[in-house]
């Protein structure tokens, strides 16, 4: 399978604090990677480096033949179109209705006509089960609904890869399922995905590969079966033991 993202020796420092240490990895087309691990381990920072929301201190990220760290502002903007991102806190634009949220980037960035964007947006909202909420403002939606709109918004740019940054962590437990369902459907359709998550069930069922991250390094990588059933690394074992206790 062709490689979509190649990560080479990524380091990231905030001041004197080393958050990411010499990370390496490959994401292949159609793969679902779940990044798990304890809080503060650098998972989110790693994910945000992938679309340059954070600039790595050193190292290379190659996305579809482009070396991201060497690009200028407008080139990065162009590549970001192909990398959808979903945030823990949804980040829907509060000044726009649901459908306007989804339409914004296709109209502004892809210069799609308003009519075409409207049609696309309604189709995507229907796909995440929220077509009837099109004209509501985000503040009137539940967390789970907002996150599904955020996914539709990212899909509207027809991205090659979707990045999820703990998409269910801010949700009430009863809403987690509806969001995971949408993500699972996406995976089934063959979308390449990198998911930072605490949902071990989702990682087990959907991921092609699980990367366990702790202390700024990938302590262990493997198939869900290898990581969850036969963890080799002591830190992985500790982490999973704590998770299962809870």
């Amino acid at each position, binding site marked *: 399978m062709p490689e979509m993202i190649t990560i080479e020796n990524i380091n990231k420092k905030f001041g004197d604090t080393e958050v990411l240490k010499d990370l390496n990895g490959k994401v292949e087309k159609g793969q679902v990677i779940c990044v798990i691990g304890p809080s503060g381990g650098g998972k989110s920072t790693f994910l945000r480096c992938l679309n340059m929301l954070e600039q790595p201190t050193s190292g290379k990220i190659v996305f579809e033949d482009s070396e991201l760290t060497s690009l200028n502002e407008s080139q990065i903007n162009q590549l970001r179109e192909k990398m959808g991102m979903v945030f823990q806190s949804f980040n829907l634009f509060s*000044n726009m209705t649901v459908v306007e949220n989804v339409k914004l980037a296709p109209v502004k960035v892809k210069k799609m006509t308003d009519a075409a964007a409207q049609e696309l947006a309604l189709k995507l909202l229907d796909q995440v089960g929220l077509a009837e909420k099109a004209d509501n403002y985000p503040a009137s939606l539940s967390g789970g609904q907002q996150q599904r709109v955020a996914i539709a918004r990212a899909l509207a740019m027809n991205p090659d890869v979707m990045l999820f940054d703990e998409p269910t962590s801010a949700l009430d437990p009863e809403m987690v399922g509806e969001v995971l369902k949408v993500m699972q459907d996406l995976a089934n359709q063959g979308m390449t995905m990198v998911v930072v998550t605490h949902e071990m069930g989702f990682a087990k069922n959907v991921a092609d590969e699980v990367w366990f991250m702790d202390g700024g390094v990938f302590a262990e990588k493997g198939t869900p079966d290898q990581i969850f059933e036969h963890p080799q690394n002591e830190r992985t074992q500790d982490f999973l033991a704590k998770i299962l206790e809870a």
Partner: protein
Amino acid sequence: MLAFTVSVAMLGVFAQPTQAATDDSLARVQEKGTLVMGTSPDYPPYEFLVNRGGKERVVGMDVDIAKKIAKDLGVKLVIKQMDFDSLLVALETNKVDMVISGMSPTAARKKSVDFSNVYYKGGQSIIINKADKGLYKDRTSFQNKAMGAQTGSIQFNLGKKQIKGSNMKGLAKISDLILALKSHKVEGVIMETPSAQAYVDNDPDLAMINGKFSLGSGENDTAIGFKKGSTSLVNEVNKSVDQINKQKLTKTYLKHAGTYMKTNTKNTSMWHYTSYFVKGVEYTLLITVIGVIFGILLGVLFALMRLSKIKLIHFLGVAYIEFVRGTPLMIQVMFVYFGIGLFINIPALIAGIIAVSLNSAAYVAEIIRGGINSVAKGQTEAARSLGLSQQQTFVSVIFPQALKNIWPALGNEFVSLIKESSIVSIIGVTDLIYQLKAVQTATYKGVIPIVVAMVIYFVMTFSLSKVLNHYERKMKHDA
């Protein structure tokens, strides 16, 4: 007084290059075909406003004199109203060709102004409350008492020098001084005899006494002021002044002024002066609305400059905001009108609008900066991760949300702009405050016009608040 000193000091800085020019004063007036007279029309019978069929006009002895001069020169007379304080600055900055405003050619003034021959000798009197008539007989009765006179006037200096232990209070407008007298803030107001006579004739609560001041050269006289070095114009005008003196025309002019004063006091109800207040409201609203529009446009610009990562642009933004917020609007208004006016001749209204806009921009910039900073960082990240550029993110996502957050603060700024724009009255813009003073002068009534103006201001600010609240509710999208 401070205002006057500052504007003169400003001239010291700017006026130098224009001094060297040769005397083309007469030629210039003839060429443009107009003679612009500067005057402070709150000094009956010299100059004051009358309300004729809803229109206000400057009339009085000085206006008749100016008309004669203009006629003799074969040009059209244009009258520019402004505070007495601002008249000499207006001369220096070519806003006016001459000043006829009951002005005495004192030695101090002669240093910076050329004067015509004397056209009137007034004498100095003191106005008192009629009830106090037994208490005071001349200036010596006022030892250690509070006295009033027009700021920057010769009467102010007379009182200061010739009344022992006097406590002089200066106000720009005679009408305000009369109010101060009636409310016993001062015990007497020093003014020229004809003016004092006019007030006493029209207000039964006032009386006048001879001040018995010892008057030095020029202090009893009234003459026409010109920009220093306008010899050719002065000589030509002196021909008219000599005729006026020979034919004793001032007597006729004073009688003429007297008839105007009677028509003025015939109807002193505020309804009669509705047109004054309407005009004032028009100008106040015009200045505020344009000030708000440019205040926002420039405010956004300065806020973005201040938020810029480029050091020089950031510095310029900070410098502008801090400087404008650190200086009074009054000085900014004078600076734009007189200071910048030295290089480009801008009308008072435009100067007022520019000053108010530039001032508002600084405050709006800080409000907008606060608003931009208040938008959650995740909004920017979400927009950027969709491929929107920094600019697109700002226009579509950040600014609309910032605007919603700062709407109440922005509304406060607009409301206070309605009130603060009143400062433009000092350069003669006929806003509500200016018209208030005009009505006070015309009716010899002090308090009622203040009440009327106060109510009008309140109605304007209150309605604006209501309108803004309506839009604030409209912008709320939180369930």
